[in-house]
């Protein structure tokens, strides 16, 4: 039986048989689909990467206003661009471990206040010059200096001093941070020659590709670099092309008709149907991204914790996952951390949907019965308007007068989110708990969109940050999670999966919970089996 399976799986990797056929034949031999799929993955790996060809991705999240400047990157298409030509000091691997890129190694002091990154030598930029620790320093300076417009400015704030010491790049912090290396994996922090100070959008970096053509909002093309340092693992296709397909149907049609090899953001509503198409596979990865309803805990009536609890009990999480995510996700527990994070405490009890408890807390809150306005928009997260309607229904059943106010997509992030006291929103998740909490739940955080300002919570966060002992850290994080769950302004009904799809001639795919399509690295790490 094993020989037979092995033979079949080789046929698939050579493109002589579809994955679906294989799973069917394997089932006939008494092998479960999960085992069959993992056998396939092994077979594909054994074959090794195929070099050459043009790999194409159809991606949403691009506009004609996009630039190649890493500091201003905020959507998915520019992010795929960055991955092609640039690299960061370190990467976060699919298993949550640190992967060394431009840094060869990293070491921290016992108090986690000083971090030394040893920079690799002899790695050329695409302009021919070798990357030096000075380039690293200047890159970090560009993202953190007074004139910075960078989206990474927030995470650079705790850094007190940066310097070059021989081959090393040294970071000193005002308070210890055991997770600092993870912050350096932020995609904004692509190492650029001279820090990209002169021409931030030039697209020159140490990545596997160089820009061939660059038509924002339409398409981006890349050519493989012959002098790339890590060509064993990245940059398999000779050319890589990205088509900007913002329309969901255009994306699926392009994949079905073979005009692209992979697409991002498959609408959960059609994912099940799409997966039945013969020449492709839908890939869904449980991640850290989540859809939320956020309340400002310093604004009436949400300053009353009983009312917040009433609303938290009044949301039917299972229904949300079923109807809004069509099963492509998991239920949330009113804290932004789930099992995808390291040091997650899975003993924290799950909050269940309970109309009785909701009614009880609502009564205790003494709310005067005036409508509670929840603002939402299609752009808040996919299905946000429907989710708000479901929430309204179940809240009504508990006697809570929830009223939905629909806002335009346009201007939602500047006029509603982080401005209005109760609205729908989403978070993309972060590689580690510390980063998630310090981005949105620390008193001083710019994006504290629930206005959660509790000194005790801040102290725990700082203590956990500097704590090297993992068991102790886990314990502190657990307390923080529970605190947020019971007192925070966050109603978190669901964690959404990243749903994408790839053609069956794409090799080298693996699941990565850090971001969609292998943390946006699928175009540079996958290959075409029929190239």
């Amino acid at each position, binding site marked *: 039986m094993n020989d037979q399976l092995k033979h079949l799986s080789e046929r698939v990797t050579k493109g002589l048989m579809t994955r679906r056929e294989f799973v069917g034949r394997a089932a006939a031999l008494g092998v479960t689909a999960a085992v069959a799929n993992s056998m396939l993955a092994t077979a594909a790996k054994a074959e090794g990467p195929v070099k050459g060809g043009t790999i194409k991705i159809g991606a949403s999240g691009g506009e*004609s*206003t996009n630039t190649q400047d890493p500091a201003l990157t905020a959507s998915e298409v520019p992010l795929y661009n960055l991955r092609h030509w640039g690299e960061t000091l370190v990467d976060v691997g699919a298993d949550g471990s640190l992967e060394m890129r431009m840094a060869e190694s990293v070491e921290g002091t016992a108090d986690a206040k000083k971090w030394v990154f040893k920079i690799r030598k002899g790695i050329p930029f695409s302009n021919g010059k070798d990357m030096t620790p000075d380039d690293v320093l200047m890159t970090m300076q560009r993202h953190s200096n007074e004139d*910075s417009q960078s989206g990474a400015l927030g995470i650079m704030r705790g850094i007190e001093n940066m310097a070059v010491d021989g081959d090393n790049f040294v970071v000193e912090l005002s308070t210890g941070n055991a997770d600092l290396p993870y912050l350096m994996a932020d995609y904004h922090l692509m190492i650029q020659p001279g820090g990209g100070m002169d021409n931030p959008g030039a697209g020159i970096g140490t990545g596997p590709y160089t820009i061939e053509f660059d038509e924002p909002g339409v398409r981006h093309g890349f050519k493989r670099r012959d002098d790339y340092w890590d060509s064993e693992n990245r940059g398999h296709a000779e050319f890589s092309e990205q088509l900007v397909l913002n*329309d969901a149907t255009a994306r699926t*049609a392009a994949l079905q008709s073979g005009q692209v090899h992979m697409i991002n953001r498959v609408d959960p509503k059609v994912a099940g149907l799409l997966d039945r198409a013969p020449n492709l596979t839908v890939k869904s990865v449980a991640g850290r991204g989540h859809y939320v309803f956020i309340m400002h805990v310093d604004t009436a009536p949400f300053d009353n914790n009983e009312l917040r609890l009433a609303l938290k009990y009044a949301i039917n999480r299972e229904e949300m996952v079923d109807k809004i995510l069509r099963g492509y996700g998991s239920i949330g527990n009113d804290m932004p951390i789930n099992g995808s994070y390291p040091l997650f405490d899975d003993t924290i009890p799950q909050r269940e949907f309970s109309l009785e408890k909701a009614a009880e807390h609502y009564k205790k809150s003494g709310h005067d019965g005036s409508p509670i306005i929840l603002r939402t928009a299609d752009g808040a997260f996919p299905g946000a308007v429907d989710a708000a309607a479901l929430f309204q229904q179940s809240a009504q059943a508990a006697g809570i007068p929830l009223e939905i106010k629909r806002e335009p997509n346009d201007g939602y992030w*500047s006029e509603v989110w982080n401005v209005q006291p109760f609205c729908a929103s989403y978070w993309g998740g972060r590689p580690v708990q510390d980063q998630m909490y310090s981005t949105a739940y620390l008193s001083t955080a710019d994006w504290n969109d629930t206005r959660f300002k509790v000194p005790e919570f801040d102290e725990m966060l700082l203590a956990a940050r500097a704590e090297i002992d993992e068991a102790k850290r886990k314990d502190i994080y657990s307390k923080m999670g529970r605190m947020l769950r019971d007192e925070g302004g966050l109603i978190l009904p669901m964690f959404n999966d990243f749903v994408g799809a790839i053609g069956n001639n794409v090799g080298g795919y693996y699941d990565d919970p850090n971001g969609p399509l292998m943390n946006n690295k699928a175009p540079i790490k996958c290959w075409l089996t029929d190239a």
Partner: protein
Amino acid sequence: MHPIVKLVAQRLALGLLLLFAASILIFAGTSILPGDVAQQILGQAATPEALENLRRELGLNEPAVTRYFSWLGGILQGDLGTALTNGRDIAESLSSRLSNTLFLAFWAAVIAVPLAIFLGLLAVRYKDRWPDKIISGVTLTTISIPEFMIGYVLIYWVSIKWGMFSSVAIINDSMTLGQKLNAIAIPVMVLTLVVLAHMMRMTRAAILNVMQSAYIETAELKGLGMLKIIRKHAFPNAIAPIVNVVMLNLAYLVVGVVVVEVVFAYPGMGQYLVDHVSKRDVPVVQACGLIFAAVYIGLNLIADIVSILANPRLRHPK
């Protein structure tokens, strides 16, 4: 001065005035929209410092009136400026987008206009009989279905099921004419189906209107064939309203096809404009707005001139 030359001169002068007024409206409109370009660029990731730094660099701290006049000064010297969002030269990006839009509009028009007029004539010839009913029924159906729906249906059958044409209409300079036409085949079909009914019905109505005149009856009594009467006597007198409708539809093909552009990812001006409106990139919105307004004004001017040339009575206003 020849009356037509005078008319053209007058219209052009008025057109310039209209363009100026349009530019003020566009500027005011984009300023009223919530949020500014700095906020839109940084999106959810905006920190107050980053916003302030970006605003300072883009000159957004200047008063709106100052920004408008510095933009106007540039335009008068033929400088469209650079996009605030990505620093690209607007004239350069715009010219490729505009030529794509015109390319698509041209091929749609080349098919749709003759077909619509021909079908209109045919409908008149077989008025109230089955060819007329089929033509009207089919074209009215296709105009009533939203264009993205027609687009999806055609993509499903033509591209995915039959594998004939590409579902993605991204074109670029390195493609041959044949490759480009292959890429835009389905969008051209969609646009043809969308604009057909309007022009066809107007042709039919205008000619039927003329057909009730006394001189047509005379021609009929003389024993002329129906098609000949339509071609020689009715059509020339019905040209003015038909040309008006044709021009209106041509203008639509240039300025109103953003939905089709999105469905087929076509790199035309509509998508370009929408992206920049949502990012509040005023200079680009202004430039696009001016071009769209100029197209409308120009096509209407042509329609008027053709009407006058076709109708001697209009050439000598009392």
